[in-house]
Structures are given as structure tokens and as C-alpha cells.
């Protein structure tokens, strides 16, 4: 007892000390006028790392002035630094050209205005900023006698190209996907929406990682209150680490205990652009191709960008199929177990005979069988994801063979059960956006079906539905436009009406009437003027 107490005490004291350490925001003060002083300070701060590079040299301008630049190896484009910084500064005709025209005091200003041939230069006085910016790939120039430094954007690190996203593929529509570089990602969206109202705001989250995060929205479309709420929640994040947008998602979501995601993510710029244009707000996080968007409604998980690119008939049919697939993937194992162990009278006689025949040589109850196969399938899927690529295909073949053939022949599972789980698996891939919630719901219903039959499935479905109705995402009801019913929104929910009928933006997100197009967009036959006959 005493031992345990002392242990908790140690933890407490440790926590206290660490929080103190975290809260004391280290400050390095302002930049000194002396280059040497600055050099020493920077070496003090960054010196231990070998990837920090210093270059000291002299600039001759009426008299010799010492200058040094500092950057991080690997984060910068060194050719760029050589040509645009070092070479420009050290050119011998530097003094001759400018000696007469400029007063001596303004060396810094001369360097900034006339010498450096870089498009993005900033003058900065705080040493903290300098350290932060250098660590994100910029290059700092200190000039002796000036208490401010010049920061030049020289970022040039290796990054992936803009490629087709692996998680969301499509037949029709843009094939570009986000990559890991923040500014590339925002640029990809900017390319879709050439509009000054598209605003990106920047912030840094994570005390240790200092991750760059940008929120994007369209001024005039997005609800300003939601924008404020997003900023507010982001500002409240107080953590060391933001490595991926998933971290942000978990810190700002409305319902942290729910199995349903209330924040969407996407790898596709066209999808994010469409969401922005509907009044949503995007959160870009440096270092990940997954861009978050809020508010997130349940219907979005059943929508695909292709729905809008293809004609309404096919799109509506696909929507219906996706809803059907959602029900199948959540409910099939549970239904099968309930029917096979409680409600044998519900299946046609011939089917029951076949089911009984298949079940005859299986030693386990149907529920155990279903549980085993579903778990095996999840294992296979996980293995397929984690496996090194070349082995992945082997896994799928082995899996299909083992489960499909061998298990049935060995009498471990029945053939109908294999069909049920295969159906569950296939339909599960139709609604990938919801895959994590689907797995949990599937097991939930499976257990209920095994314990209480159809009654359990009914209760489980009611519980899930009730829970879904209670969810909110940044002020929007999760089940809108179905619950609460929003008539204009229904046009783009279960069915996808023709684009020329979708005149207003989603009300559940905007919270006000906002039109996206006029009323007369329906394509019509050209009007023939009777007076001008066709000859």
C-alpha cells in the first residue's frame, strides 16, 4: 500500500516538473547588432546538430562587412543559395555599382532591395522566429551592425510527386492526389478554385513538432461562426506532437467517444474543393496527404466525387447500391446467425435443407463459425495492408484458398458462411469511408443476434440509429438531411438529382439560404426563330 502510494507520488511530482518545463516558453530574445554575438547564440542553440550549416564571409561595401548565413542541410536547395545568396553578395562589382548611389547606413536595405535575387525575403528581429524559420528550411542572413536578419525562402527538400491517391481511386475525374508538402496541397486546391475569396490561414500546432497547419475556406460561402469555431478548437490543442491530420482530428472532433467519424478526410483535391464550395472548411496538415474537412455529414460517406461527374441516373443507382452495401456489410453475418439459430422458419424450405446440409458436418455453432470467419477476414485484410507490397498478393491468394476451399473441405466452416463473410467483405469495400465504424457495428450486431435473435438485431439497429441521430459535427446534425429532414438537401442524398436542380448549397452546413446557381440551368432545345426560316 505504502509502496503504491509513493509510486503515485513520484508520478505526480514528475508530472508537475514536466508541465513546468513545458509551460516555460523558452525565449532567445532579440537579434544583436554584432554578427559574432549572433553567430555564437545560434551555435549555442543549434550547434549540437550536425545538419546545421554556417557560412561566414565578407561583403565589401565601402568597407568590409562580415556576414554569415545559416541553413539546415537537406531542407534547402543549395544551388539556389549559392547562386542567389552567396554569389550575389560576394560579387566584386557590388561595391562599385552601388557605392555612390546609396548611403552607408542602409547596407541591409540595399542587400534586400537590390542585391538578393530571391522572390521571398523577410526582415526579422526576433531570434525565436529566426530559429523557427531556419528549422523549416529557410536561410537566414546576418549582417554585421544590424539588429535584424533577412530570411530567404530556400526550401528545397525532397518530396513525392503529385500522384494518383491510393485510397480513393476513380474512373472519371481528376487523378491527382495530395502529397506530403503543405504548400503543394493548398496550391492543388487553389488550382481548382481560382477565386480571391478562397482563404488559407496558417498556424503552427505541436509544441515540439511545430507542425504547419493551414485552414482553408471560401469567404462568403463558409459560415463565419464555424470558421471561428475551427480556429478556436485548433488553438486549444496543447500537445507536443502533430504528425498527421489524424492527430488533429482526434483533438478537435465533437464526439470523441463515438465510433462514427465526424470529420472527413480526403486525398483528392477535387473532393476537397467541392467540399469548400459547399461551405465546408478544410484543414491541411504538413506532412500528410490526408486533408480534413468539417462539418462532416453521414451522407458524405455514401457520396463519391464521381457521382457528380457522371449522369444522374447512374449516380443515383450507385448511391442506392452503396446504401444497400452498407446494410449488407453491417448486417449480413448477424442476419445469417439469427436465421440459422433462431428463426429457421423464415427461410424457404429448400434453402433451409441446403443450409442444414452444409451445417451438418461443422462442429461449431453458427455464431462461433461466423465470428471465426469474420475475424480471419479482418486478419487477412490487416495483413494485406501491413505486408510488404510483393508479399501482399501472396497473402490474398493464400487467404482466398484457405478460407474458400480448404476450410470448407476440412469441415471447419460451412460453405454458406463463406459466402456470407465474402459478401460482407466485398460490400465493406464499397463504403470504405466508414470502414472502422462498420467493423465495430458488425461485431456488435453479430453478438446481439447470437444472444437475442432478430430482436437483438432490431434493438442494436435502434441503438445505433439513436446514437447517430445524437451526433453533431461542428454544429451540423450528423444525419442531415435525413434526420432532421431538409427537403433541398434530400435532392442530393439517397438519389442524386440532376445538377441543374441542385440550386442551393447544403442547408445543414451553411445554416442559411445560399444559392449556388440560377434556376434556368436545365438544358433545352435551341429556340428557332420563326421569322428567320431555314431557307
Amino acid at each position, binding site marked *: 500500500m505504502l509502496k503504491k502510494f509513493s509510486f503515485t507520488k513520484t508520478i505526480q511530482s514528475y508530472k508537475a516538473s514536466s508541465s513546468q518545463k513545458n509551460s516555460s516558453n523558452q525565449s532567445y530574445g532579440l537579434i544583436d547588432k554584432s554578427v559574432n554575438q549572433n553567430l555564437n547564440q545560434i551555435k549555442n542553440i543549434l550547434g549540437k546538430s550536425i545538419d546545421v550549416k554556417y557560412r561566414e564571409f565578407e561583403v565589401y561595401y565601402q568597407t568590409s562587412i562580415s556576414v554569415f548565413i545559416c541553413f539546415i542541410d537537406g531542407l534547402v536547395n543549395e544551388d539556389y543559395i549559392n547562386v542567389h545568396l552567396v554569389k550575389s553578395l560576394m560579387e566584386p562589382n557590388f561595391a562599385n555599382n552601388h557605392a555612390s548611389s546609396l548611403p552607408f547606413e542602409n547596407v541591409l536595405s540595399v542587400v534586400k532591395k537590390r542585391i538578393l535575387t530571391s522572390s521571398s525575403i523577410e526582415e526579422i528581429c526576433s531570434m525565436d522566429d529566426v530559429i523557427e524559420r531556419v528549422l523549416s528550411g529557410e536561410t537566414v542572413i546576418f549582417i554585421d551592425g544590424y539588429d535584424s536578419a533577412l530570411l530567404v525562402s530556400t526550401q528545397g527538400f525532397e518530396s513525392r510527386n503529385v500522384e494518383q491517391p491510393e485510397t480513393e481511386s476513380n474512373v472519371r475525374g481528376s487523378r491527382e492526389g495530395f502529397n506530403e508538402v503543405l504548400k503543394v496541397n493548398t496550391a492543388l486546391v487553389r488550382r481548382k478554385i481560382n477565386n480571391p475569396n478562397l482563404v488559407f490561414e496558417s498556424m503552427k500546432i505541436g509544441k515540439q513538432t511545430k507542425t504547419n497547419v493551414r485552414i482553408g475556406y471560401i469567404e462568403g460561402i463558409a459560415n463565419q461562426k464555424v470558421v471561428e469555431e475551427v480556429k478556436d478548437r485548433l488553438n486549444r490543442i496543447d500537445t507536443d506532437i502533430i504528425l498527421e491530420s489524424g492527430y488533429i482530428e482526434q483533438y478537435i472532433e465533437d464526439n470523441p467517444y463515438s465510433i462514427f467519424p465526424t470529420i472527413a478526410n480526403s486525398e483528392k483535391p477535387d473532393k476537397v474543393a467541392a467540399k469548400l464550395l459547399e461551405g465546408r472548411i478544410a484543414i491541411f496538415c504538413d506532412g500528410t496527404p490526408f486533408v480534413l474537412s468539417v462539418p462532416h455529414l453521414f451522407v458524405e460517406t455514401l457520396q463519391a466525387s464521381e457521382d457528380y461527374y457522371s449522369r444522374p441516373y447512374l449516380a443515383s443507382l450507385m448511391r442506392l447500391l452503396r446504401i444497400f452495401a452498407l446494410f449488407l456489410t453491417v448486417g449480413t453475418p448477424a442476419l445469417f446467425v439469427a436465421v440459422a439459430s433462431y428463426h429457421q*422458419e423464415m427461410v424457404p424450405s429448400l434453402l433451409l435443407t441446403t443450409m442444414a446440409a452444409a451445417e451438418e458436418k461443422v462442429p461449431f455453432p453458427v455464431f462461433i463459425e461466423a465470428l471465426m470467419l469474420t475475424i480471419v477476414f479482418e486478419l487477412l485484410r490487416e495483413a494485406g495492408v501491413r505486408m510488404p507490397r510483393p508479399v501482399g498478393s501472396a497473402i490474398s491468394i493464400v487467404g482466398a484458398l484457405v478460407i474458400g476451399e480448404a476450410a470448407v473441405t476440412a469441415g471447419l466452416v460451412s460453405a454458406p458462411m463463406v459466402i456470407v463473410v465474402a459478401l460482407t467483405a466485398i460490400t465493406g469495400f464499397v463504403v470504405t469511408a466508414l470502414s472502422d465504424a462498420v467493423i465495430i457495428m458488425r461485431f456488435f450486431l453479430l453478438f446481439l443476434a447470437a444472444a437475442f435473435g432478430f*430482436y*437483438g438485431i432490431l434493438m442494436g439497429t435502434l441503438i445505433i440509429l439513436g446514437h447517430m441521430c445524437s451526433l453533431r459535427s461542428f454544429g451540423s446534425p450528423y444525419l442531415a438531411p435525413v434526420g432532421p429532414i431538409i427537403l433541398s438537401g434530400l435532392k442530393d442524398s439517397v438519389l442524386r438529382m440532376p445538377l441543374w436542380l441542385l440550386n442551393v448549397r447544403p442547408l445543414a452546413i451553411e445554416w442559411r439560404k445560399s444559392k449556388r446557381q440560377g434556376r434556368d440551368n436545365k438544358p433545352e432545345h435551341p429556340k428557332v426563330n420563326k421569322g428567320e426560316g431555314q431557307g
Partner: protein
Amino acid sequence: MKKLVIVLFCLLLVTGCWDRRELTEIGIVSALAIDKNPDTGDFEITSLFIRPSAESTQTPSPERPFLLVTTTGKTIIEAIRKSSQTTDREGFFAHNKVIIINEQIAKEGLIPVMDTFQRGKDIRGYVWLCIAKGTEAKNVLQIKSDNISRIPANYLNSLIENAEEEAAKINFLTYNKEALSEEKDPVAGVLSIEKIEKEPFERVKFSGGAVFQKDKLKGFLTERETRGYHFVTGEGPANQGVISLPSVLEKGKFVTIEVRNVTSQIKPEVKGNQISFTIEVKQEGRIAEQQATGQFKDRKEQVDYFRKIEEENKKRIEEEVNLVVKKAQQEFQTDIFGFGRALNKDYPDVWNNVKDNWDERFADVPYTVNANVDITSSLLLQGPLEPK
């Protein structure tokens, strides 16, 4: 919130489906035959269990796909439960297709026998109820007949479902409804065993009807009478079947009408103390076969030909209806057509007066038959063909 959670938990945990049975624990019973031992007076129940492994699609075993278990008991349910002494599966009756009842038991009244099926939850309302005529009920299940389905119950089920209008059929629910009401008495299906010359020397036949007074079997209808019965009731399988009529074109040749859409209406008429009925039968038909040869000169001749056939067909309907109504009135004194139901609908007061001795009143109630036949088509050929 707390209350809601409690309510939800109660909903889940206080109730639920309770009769969990694995597929490997149940024995699917798909037919029942009920006989009575004449010496002891015990019921003999023959249950047809399905043996699923023999029907397996992957590794079917060569055994017979079914199992016949005969047990005896003082009551039906006692006999059924006794099957657990000899059979390794618990009987599961929800997929029962047909109940076959011995003629002798039916004569003594079926409502007491059927009590347990009504009371229990397993047997469904749509089970076919048949009377085994001239044989023990279990023999119908045991027969080695030529059939396509390997399981006798499936074969009997299809046989009854596809029956044409020469055979009456009734399900368990309708039987109970009619036997328990005063307005109409039931007519059940009849299964009999027919001897044939070649293998397997005998086969099951589903034809005719078994007439009940209240719940007691009174007698049987022939095939023609059963067809007449269907003309009067206008229900059942009446839109399947054919009628062969003597050809009007050539002596000794026949024309066969395919019967479609039989509807009928029984109209009661009350004048003072006198109750009478009009039976209006409407039938559509198509010429399905035409033996006579010949050629029509013009359209008019063809239309006239149709009229003549319609007249023949009408006569046939009236003849058969008269046959069966006479038999019901004179031989059985039982209202199997629902005359009482029609009377109750139109003249409830009169019905309340006569319902107590309706069977006697029915026996000599006057009626008229009005038949209306419409030959709508002669299929792909217009008239008769003539070889030249």
C-alpha cells in the same frame, strides 16, 4: 439520460428470442400423416424428417433423403413427442408442408385432432390438409412413386400447388375457419393411391374433394363434381384446367377449352319465407385444341362458331354445377358453397333466423344457375384447318 440507458438495457436484457436451436439440432419435419390404430384407439403419427446430408450439394450421401418415423400416443402431441425416443433430432414443424389424415379419423371430426396444431406455434396456417382416401395416411408417404423431388413432402406440396380444378385443396387455416363457421363447410383435398401396371406399380393421385359437414367427413366428390364445385365458388385453382366439349362442326370430334378467369357470384333472394339463390358463373376460355377439320368462309362464320362453343360450354357448366349442388343438397346436406355466407351478407336478419338449422334448410333451397362464357381467343390458329 440515465433513465434512457436503463430502458435500453431492459429492452435488451429482459426480453429477446429464446428458442435458440442450432441447425444441427433440429430435425426438419416436412410432412405428417395421422392414422388411428383401430384396436387400441391410439393415434399413429408418421413424421417425415428430412435428412439434410443426403441433400448436400457438395458431398451428397447416397441414403434416402428422408426418414419416416411412426410413433403412437393417446393424443397427437404425445405421439409427436415420442419421436424423440427413436430419432436423434428434435422435430421442427415450421416447414411442414402437408398433413395427411386418415379417412376414418376425418369421419369422427377433425377439430379435436387439430387442436394441438392450432395451439402450438410451429405448424403454420398454410399447411395443406389432405384426406387419404381408401388407404392409411402413412402409406401415402411411404409409397415408392415416380416423382422428381426426392423428398415426398416436396413432391406432394408441388402436386397440390399445381393441381387443376378437378381437385379441391384447402389449407389448415381455411379449413379451421370454415369448419368453425356456420356459413360454409370445408372441402378438403383427397390423396389416394392408384395401382398402375408398370413399375413402381402404384402412385399417389390428387383429385376430387372431401366434403365435410362441420368438421366431420361426409363423403367424396368426383372429379366432375369438384370442377362444378369450383365453378360455384369461383375460387381455388379455377383458372387452370380444360373442358372438352363435343365439336359442333363434326360428330364424334371434340374441342377443348382452356379455362381462364372463373368468377362466380351467389345471389340470395328472400321473398317472404322463401329463400332462393342464383348462382352466376362467368368464365373466360381459349380454344386449346380443335379436332374437327374444316374451313370458315368468312369472319361471321367464325364468330358464330365461337358463339356455339360458348353455348356448349355454358351448358356444361350448368350441368356440372347442378350435379354438385344436387349432391351436396341431397346426399350430404351440407353447404360447401357458402350459400349461407352470401345470405348472411345480404340478409343478416333472415340468416340469424335460419342459421341454427341451416343444413336442413340448405338441403331443399331452390337455386338457378346462370352461366356466362366468353371465348376470347383461339390461340395462334384462327379457325380449324382443312387438309387438301
